[in-house]
């Protein structure tokens, strides 16, 4: 087996009505890593996952999961992966134990092995003492944990998590990510997770791909992606004046050797600078000379949010809406898929 557990080659999905949800996406996921797939709602994250888990036929291109072709060897692909959808698809009218029994049945485990595995995964997600309760009485976090547990029942080599923390409160989110980290270290399961929480992706993922409008804009470790921006980011709010206009200011600033790039955002000016601490005074004196007043400034180390902004031209955090919005966009996508 090769060291890549997922390989895609120009994977493409076009929905009726010429909607290209995923556009010639090529990437590979290494065995044992936590791979983050980042993008706003409707960027093509879920569509990509659905193709990889064989629930959607690609329009063109190809992919392998665990060395099995996702079109030709669908059964083998399904056996080797676990899938936890963003819907938190647990059965409310069954107990936790029954949910897992059902899942074990779907994966053709014998009764004896099923019992062992159910104990094992319940332990993993700390639900042992609630196993006999109806899932309808579980909290949101418990439901998600049960859902993850049922994705693990057949000991998959790779677990697909679609927005695992969507709609959960902050403590629960942290807990879920703890479990995911534990999976990787204790069970050596590869994790393929989508999220639009950049902070989570930053400290958890070994590598992240940024996808927007069905195209992968960047793919690397979070550290490399941030470094590639070339140092620090200086946010400046410039006062209105009769002096030089924004484009002119940007051109002048770009002449400084420490300034890599400039970008206007929401009336602010973003400067990608080397050694922010020492170059900021020089930028200030230049602006002073140009007669530009500065209302406020913020110097910071780049985050994945900044990486996203740099590659897509917009901030993801604006779109990290609530659960209801996510539901609506999902229903919209479903309608499109018909």
């Amino acid at each position, binding site marked *: 087996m090769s060291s890549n557990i997922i390989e895609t080659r120009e994977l493409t999905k076009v929905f009726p009505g010429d909607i290209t949800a995923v556009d010639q996406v090529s990437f590979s996921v290494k065995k044992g890593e936590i791979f983050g797939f980042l993008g706003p709602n409707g960027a093509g994250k879920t569509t990509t996952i*659905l193709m990889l*888990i*064989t*629930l*959607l036929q690609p329009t063109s291109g190809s992919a392998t999961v665990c060395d099995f072709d996702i079109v030709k060897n669908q*059964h083998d692909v*399904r*056996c080797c992966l676990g*899938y936890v*959808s*963003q*819907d*938190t*698809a*647990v*059965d409310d*009218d*069954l107990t936790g134990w*029954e949910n897992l029994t*059902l*899942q074990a*049945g*779907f*994966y*053709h485990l014998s009764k004896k092995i099923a019992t062992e595995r159910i104990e094992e995964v319940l332990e993993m997600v700390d639900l042992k003492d609630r196993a006999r309760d*109806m899932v309808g009485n579980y909290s949101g976090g418990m439901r998600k944990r049960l859902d993850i547990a*049922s994705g693990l029942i057949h000991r998959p080599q790779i677990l697909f998590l679609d927005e695992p923390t969507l709609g959960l409160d902050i403590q629960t989110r942290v807990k879920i990510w703890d479990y995911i980290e534990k999976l990787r270290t204790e069970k050596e399961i590869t994790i393929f997770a989508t999220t639009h929480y950049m902070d989570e992706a930053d400290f958890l993922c070994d590598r992240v791909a940024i996808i927007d409008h069905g195209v992968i804009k960047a793919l690397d470790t979070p550290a490399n992606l941030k470094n590639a921006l070339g140092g620090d980011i200086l946010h400046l709010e410039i006062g209105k004046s009769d002096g030089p206009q924004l484009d002119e200011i940007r051109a002048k600033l770009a002449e400084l050797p420490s300034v890599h790039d400039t970008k206007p955002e929401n009336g602010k000016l973003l400067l990608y600078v080397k050694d922010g601490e020492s170059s900021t005074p020089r930028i200030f004196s230049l602006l002073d000379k140009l007669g530009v007043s500065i209302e406020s400034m913020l110097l910071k180390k780049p985050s994945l949010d900044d990486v996203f902004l740099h590659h897509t031209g917009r901030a993801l955090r604006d779109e990290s809406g609530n659960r209801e919005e996510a539901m609506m966009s999902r229903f919209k996508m*479903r*309608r499109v*898929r*018909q």
Partner: protein
Amino acid sequence: MIRFLNDTYWVLWREIKHLQRQRFRIFMTLFQPVIWLTLMGNVFQRVANVPGFPASSYLNYMAPGIVVMVTLFGGVFGGMTLIWDRRLGFLQKMVAAPISRASIIFGKMLSIAVQNAIQVIVIFVVALIMSVDFNTGIGGFLIVMILASLLCMVFAGISLSLGAVATSHETLIAAVNLLTMPLMFTSNAMMPLKMMPDWLSKIAKYNPITYAVNPIRSLFLTGYDWTAILAAGLMLGLSAFLLTGLAVYLFRQNLSL
């Protein structure tokens, strides 16, 4: 094949668990036949006095009709769980597992048939307590069960086919409402063909419900009418087979709805 049976078993297992948990639903399914038999039996009692009525009391005539009617209503709502599963994302979870697609349809269909069989047994018990004639004993009872199950699968097949393509419950309910009442009243479940207007009796003759009612009624009232039993068995069996195939086909086609 063993895998298919295994998958079907687990889909069925889940549905039966659901049924066990819904006490109110169990109560209603058991109570419904009682209401039909006592209420309808009383309201239409005097119809039996009309000359030419084929049974000694309306209740006797009605009981087989109730069997078929309960079967109809049990079957036509079978597609509901499919739509629920799709909406809640549970369907996606099931098909992401390496299970046979057809087993989801078969499992659900079997659970509907099991549920219906229980209801038919209840009708028999209630009917016997109300001293409805039943002339063919255990053998006749078994044939009634088989025919009722086939009829149930015919309607479950229609319902699951609709459920496979519909995205909302409202669509299915609307379709079911459109279907059931006309089917019921253009059959001889509640009125003999002879007592219908001419045009209606012509329609009623070809209604699948009439096909099922005829042999079941003669098993109640007279004895084994093998021609009617075989005709019903063949016609219902074939329809059930074709409609199940249709449901499986539509389900596969519309998986990612």
